[in-house]
């Protein structure tokens, strides 16, 4: 039954967002330190990918830690 579930949906969401956040952060941080010669996106100088990646890491890790299945009740 549903009530006996040991993993919350918020844990799944947290895990996915955390992985996404880390991936996007790493992919964009390289462009910050070693900017490529050609940028195809507008406002690239804001490095939005780094900020968005960091935001996903914060949201993801909050859910990941708060709803981890091994947390003591």
């Amino acid at each position: 039954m549903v009530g006996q579930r040991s993993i919350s949906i918020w844990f799944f969401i947290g895990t996915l967002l955390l992985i996404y956040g880390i991936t996007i952060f790493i992919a964009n941080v390289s462009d910050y330190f070693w900017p490529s010669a050609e940028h195809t996106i507008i406002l690239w100088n804001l490095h939005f990918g780094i900020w968005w990646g960091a935001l996903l890491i914060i949201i993801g890790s909050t859910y990941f830690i708060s709803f981890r299945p091994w947390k003591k009740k």
Partner: protein
Amino acid sequence: MIDNHILPAILLFFGPSSLVSLSWTDTFIIALYFAFVLWIGYYLMRYTKTGEDFFMAGRQMTAWIAGLSFVAANLGSLELMGWAAAAYQYGILATHWYWIGAIPAMLFLGIVMMPFYYISRTHSVPGYLKLRYGEGASLLSGVSFGFMTVFMSGINMYSMALVMKVILGWDIHFSIWVSSLTVMIYVVLGGLLSAIFNEVLQFMLIWLGALLVPIIGLIESGGWSGMVARIHSNFPGGDYTHLWSTMGSFQDNPMGIHWTGIVFGLGFVISFAYWTTDFLVVQRVLAARDLRSAKMAPIIGAGFKMMVPFIVILPGLLGLALIPGLVGEKEAIATGGHSYNEVLPLMLARYAGPGLLGLGVTALIAGFMSGMAGNISAFATVWTYDIYRPLHIKLSHTEEKDAHYVKIGRWCTVVGVLVSIGTAYLVQQFASIMDYVQALFSFFVAPLLGTVLFGMLWKRATAAGGFWGLFAGIGSSIGMWAWVKLDPGALRIIALSEHAQDMAENMYRALWSWLICVGVTVVVSLLTAPKPEAELTGLVRGCTEIPSEGDMPLIKRPIFWAAIIFVIFVALNIIFW
């Protein structure tokens, strides 16, 4: 991580001509999403043993989960792209479909109708009709809903595959089969529980994937006032940023519609019909764990629905400000330019760097899958409980065990997905089918609202009244549609103005068919014998004792939150008047 041998094989499907091209980071993000939804389905399989688990998610959902799932099931990717395009075409008027076209109805569902759906312990809307009116109205509604749901699902699937082909250059067959089989697997494994849990995940991804466009767009255009100034400069004389001030006459706004059509046709009939009787969305709320959660779920959903224009309408308006010159589909094909139907992906490609593009595309795919899972899980429930079960009992005179219906539900899911795929291919061959099926869907919803509403609020309504009212409403809707098809001049009679356009026809046709349904229901009911009041307990207002919330603190009462949402809704309409 993704297998290095599989990825190139997948990438082979990517064509050379596309709006954007994905990096390896983007592809990883999309692939990981598919892995996660399947993992959730597999994990939940062990908790889906009984019919109550499979079809009703064990009726254990919290108000938040049911509420988010309620909105997500409606938030398909075509909805995202279609309404962004509509915002580019009609301006902020498209917001009516999110505010007056949704919020009052969702609040009404939560406060007025939910107690009857929930207390009756029905598993579906046709199930409620069976309890209230008997087999006739229930079968009519169940069969029409069942077919229309899978057909619509197929149309959405084809449209989605077409979108992926345009944006990413993906092969149409690849998009259709991979996305629909993924939905099939996780719904077969975990039933409604899996569909709901994945919808909550998809809801989060839709927001986090789509939100970056309005944020960066507003920065680029210099905030709201900068965006409005650019739109005025790009389109002098046009009014794209006022909700109501151009609604005084049909010819003053680009939609060609009068405020009466928006308020009564959209705001009352179409919106109430969809949000309160379409089982695709109502099923999510029926899975709530108690009556308070069931009442709160649509109210929470309304709060989030009110914010959706931020990720759907605003990108369309930003497109008007920043990328003027997008044209209609036919002109775009003729000139080789871009259509306003592509405004959302164009904006995404404008701002999204590595990873963010993958997240945006994942949001579109998640939107499609949440809509499809909603269709398929609702189809499986209605087909199993409202069509198969009564027919099986009638023919074999035996009631089967619970496990039998779970098995049938799983097979219905497989069949539903396969019929959807078949419909997608049919639409690919005969594009006009799409218009006919969409019209077919619109025939049923408005009259059904009359039947359900009068069933819940008027104890004198009889079984014959319910059936014939529904029948007459559907018949009149088909009649009006055929009349306009044969003689386009009939539109001015149905919509009450010679300046009315297509959008107005839908509003007024819905309004008339609802009125005809109600009229016939009332007349036939008054001419036939009513049900004894004892048989209406738990189904009708005046015969049902609704648990009091008097001992609950104000902050926990659904009516309190509904009032807050309603005040915000009114304020937003005044601000953007």
